[in-house]
């Protein structure tokens, strides 16, 4: 028994964190907000490809690193932390695993697409059947499961209708398509479970970011002659945020381990992770805003960028209510 990242996993996480700190500061997220039309940092994307992050979960035969969902969620926590305005989760975690598990090796295997994705030449996104598609304006390919078949759809050949979302750096679209490359799926629920877990991992990272912003603010903001962080109500708000993270992150890790080991309970655990990460992140978002006071409510402050990403990801890949029902089905019956 050992429930912690390995040294290699920690090193990967640190490298990704450093990259985002350098290349994806809040100003970059804000830029995605302010751009009319698709906003995509091609340079950053290529760096992710060079580091092997885009192909983290792709088979080695397709130019990937052949690593597992455990490494995947560690990277996605960092993407959440940074508020990354790019479909890394959809591309690297959801689409890649769905494609890698689909098709008959040798014949209709999506190896070529996977290789192009790992190399950063093709940008993929993914979505639940019938759901709005995130980053449809910047991706080349949409990966979606329908009736036991994993489809890879060229977005240039689909109808894409952008929606007006709260988080302008996480735009979604209604996508209608009639033909795509179809690959037989080994497990139709796999894509949905990966999607839920990818959102959960990012929500944990967002919670950490929101907590850090609040802690930094309440240490320096002074009212009544003392830092507001010395007030017990503020302390308790932020202690609750920390509690939420403490008990959500291991759930995310456990679900990733379950997916990596093809456990029968993996889908349930991904739902569990989505519920807990969503709870933690909303607590973090609301408490962080409250502890910032009016300045956090201003669009000039970075806080709202992260708050709105929580909003977006909480709604994505199935609501907490839905996933709570999945868990209840599995454990209560």
């Amino acid at each position, binding site marked *: 028994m050992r429930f912690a990242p390995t040294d290699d996993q920690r090193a990967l996480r640190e490298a990704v964190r450093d990259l985002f700190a350098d290349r994806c500061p809040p100003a970059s997220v804000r830029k995605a907000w302010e751009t009319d039309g698709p906003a995509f940092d091609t340079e950053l994307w290529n760096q992710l490809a060079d580091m092997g992050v885009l192909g983290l979960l792709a088979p080695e035969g397709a130019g990937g690193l052949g690593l597992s969902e455990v490494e995947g969620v560690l990277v996605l926590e960092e993407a959440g932390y940074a508020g990354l305005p790019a479909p890394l989760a959809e591309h690297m975690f959801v689409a890649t695993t769905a494609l890698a598990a689909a098709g008959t090796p040798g014949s209709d295997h999506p190896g070529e697409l996977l290789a192009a994705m790992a190399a950063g030449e093709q940008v993929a996104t993914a979505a639940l059947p019938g*759901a*709005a598609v995130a980053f449809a304006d910047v991706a080349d390919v949409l990966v979606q499961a329908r009736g036991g078949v994993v489809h890879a759809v060229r977005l240039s050949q689909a109808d894409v209708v952008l*929606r*007006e*979302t*709260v*988080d302008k750096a*996480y735009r*979604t679209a209604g996508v209608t398509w009639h033909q795509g490359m179809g690959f037989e799926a080994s497990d139709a629920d796999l894509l949905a479970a990966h999607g839920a877990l990818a959102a959960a991992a990012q929500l944990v990272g967002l919670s950490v970011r929101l907590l850090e912003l609040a802690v930094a603010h309440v240490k320096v903001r*002074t*009212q*009544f*002659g003392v830092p*507001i962080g010395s*007030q017990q*109500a*503020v302390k308790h708000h932020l202690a609750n945020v920390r509690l939420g993270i403490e008990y959500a992150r291991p759930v995310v890790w456990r679900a990733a381990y379950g997916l990596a080991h093809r456990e029968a309970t993996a889908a349930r655990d991904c739902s569990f992770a989505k519920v807990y990460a969503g709870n933690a992140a909303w607590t973090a978002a*609301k408490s962080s*805003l*409250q502890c910032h*006071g*009016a300045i*956090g*409510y*201003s*669009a*000039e402050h970075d806080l*709202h960028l992260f*708050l709105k990403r929580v*909003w*977006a990801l*909480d*709604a*994505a890949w*199935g*609501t907490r*209510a*839905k996933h709570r*029902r999945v868990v209840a089905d599995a454990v209560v019956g």
Partner: protein
Amino acid sequence: MDLTESPEEQAFRAEARAWLAANKPELPMPPGDSAAGFGVHRDWERTLFDAGWAVVSWPREYGGRDASLWEWLIFEEEYYRAGLPQRVAQNGIFLLAPTLFELGTQDQKDRILRRMAGVEDLWCQGWSEPGAGSDLASLTSRAERDDERGGWRLFGQKTWTTRGAFCSHLFGLFRTDPAAERHRGLTYFLLDLDQPECTVRPVDKLDGEAGFAEVFLDGAFVPDRDVLGGVGDGWAVAMATTGSERGLSLRSPGRFVAVVDRLIARYREQDAAGLVEDPSLREEVADGWMAAQAYKLATDVTVTRLAEGATMGPESSLSKVWWSEMDIALHETALRLAGADSNLDDEWARGFEFSLSGPIYAGTNEIQRNVIAERVLGLPRK
């Protein structure tokens, strides 16, 4: 207990309802916090004023109709039931006006109230400063005496000034005695912003609208006649307004009852279309109804007290905490109803964003709970 409306009250309600139905503008109106929307709201509120509905509880001489508090509640119910939005004049008519009625000179009332109600002048509140939020008494903006012109020159920065970008006047607290500390040596000024010494910078709110402003003052002039209350008495004068801001007038129950009505309609619509994913939302909608009803009933108790001569005490903090947390809960229910579409930038998402400011402004809910504990329950301060 008598919970029936008198024939006069019933007639008042019928008249208000009929007039609103016949005269209300096209809905939904654009946001009143946006440059485009502000004018539309101003026009509508002028229409309200011209027909005598802008400030029903004020004396007729200032544009009101001498209505009772009960009638004011009835008007608010009908106003929000008609789907109409929060008033852009509200910081003037609900926050400054009560103080003017209580402590203003006859000259001030004559000059200011009618123009305020008629949206000729629009008033914003100049309280918060970069260093003074919950701790208002730490404010550092100051006023210097100008004997030559017979008045004061204001210096400093006010911030989070709601709709400051669209307002013509500001009421606020400034330090007139540089040697005094905290609550002492403050004076309440009524300032015309149309001076070169005033710079107003719009600040976007979290919802993207320019609902805030920073106001920079570099010697803006206020004549003596526009000091409200005595020089140095600003704190006591301002506290009169605080009660209004937290309590009854800013958030009349009718507003939340109307939100709940829309929420129930939304639920039924989705339910009829088979689109309610989570069955427990039905009870959650009922929770919203109960919260709004409880607010209405508690307000009726308060209005009874006020009508019998009591004044609004620290109990206004109970009201502030309740409505602000209820407003968030109502909108969260709406977002849960929207499910996967809850991140669409629609009316409910906007409402949710606005609701999140409720526990922050007009004294954070943390401060309000301190007030409840200390001034209602009598717990020791520190």
